[in-house]
């Protein structure tokens, strides 16, 4: 299992690097699609069918939106020239990455190896109390019963995003 997921993650990293360095914005968007669709296969292998269904639909809609935006505007990537600003940015990124790697190396010690997770937090939700909600799908049971507030907040964010997109695109620009 670990090997399969590692290979998929390797593909995802290659796709991500290509998406960042592509010369054409359309191919960059499509390369970002590689990462998203590989994620679907990872979710299926990790026994998360709910997530796989959501991710495959959401990724498709995201791609449609991104392609619509790119076709509406321009496909050409800006010319990257190495000046002082760019050098400062790259060194800044490297410093950030080093700091994060340091903290991640500390954090990874407290993680269990893959596949030996203990249900420390979820033990209240799985097993006998699961019959409390009466839902056969435990994820839906958690989402709408134990953690209803999360779902309400999430619905609010979607609502706000829809209103925000309408507002941003509707206003008249002053030229």
């Amino acid at each position, binding site marked *: *299992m670990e090997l399969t997921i*590692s290979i998929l993650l*390797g593909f*995802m*990293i290659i796709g*991500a*690097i290509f*998406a*960042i360095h592509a010369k054409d*914005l359309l191919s*960059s*968007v499509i390369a970002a699609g590689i*990462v*998203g669709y590989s*994620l679907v296969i*990872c979710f299926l292998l*990790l*026994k*998360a*069918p*709910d*997530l796989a269904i*959501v*991710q495959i639909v*959401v990724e498709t809609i*995201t791609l449609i*939106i*991104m392609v619509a935006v790119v076709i509406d*505007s*321009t496909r050409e990537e*800006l010319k990257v020239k190495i000046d002082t600003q760019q050098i400062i940015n790259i060194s*800044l*990124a490297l410093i*950030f*990455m080093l700091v*994060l790697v340091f903290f991640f190396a500390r954090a*990874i010690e407290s993680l*269990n190896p*893959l*596949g*030996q*997770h203990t249900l420390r937090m*979820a033990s209240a*939700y*799985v097993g006998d109390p*699961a019959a409390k909600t009466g839902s*056969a*799908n*435990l*994820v839906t049971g958690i*989402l709408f019963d134990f*953690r209803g507030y*999360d779902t309400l907040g*999430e619905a609010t*964010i*979607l609502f706000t*995003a829809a209103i925000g*997109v309408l507002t*941003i*695109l509707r206003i008249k620009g002053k030229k």
Partner: protein
Amino acid sequence: MMVYILSFILFLVGLYGIITRRNLIKIVISLSIMEFSIFILLVLIGYIDGGIAPIITDQVINPTYVDPLPQAMVLTAIVIGLATTAMLMAIAIRLYRKYGTFDIREIKNLKG
């Protein structure tokens, strides 16, 4: 351990893209790549060897389920990720119509 490190490398790739790129579309793509790496890390932590998907069935006797809690969290996060991506795309196209470019430095210079 290998998978955790690889998903962290994916996160670093996204971070590098955000800091060094100047194109707004590339920045949005890098942001969504960072989101993906966090999703896969959370679901990997909740995986249990020999576990089945967290759906109660009668066919398996005495089953072990994988942890449903990270899955519920990630399910919420995916939809929020879609909302933020759509919002950022709307802002990007709006800026493009006003300034005629996706370059964030040009946009900064034209202010006023």
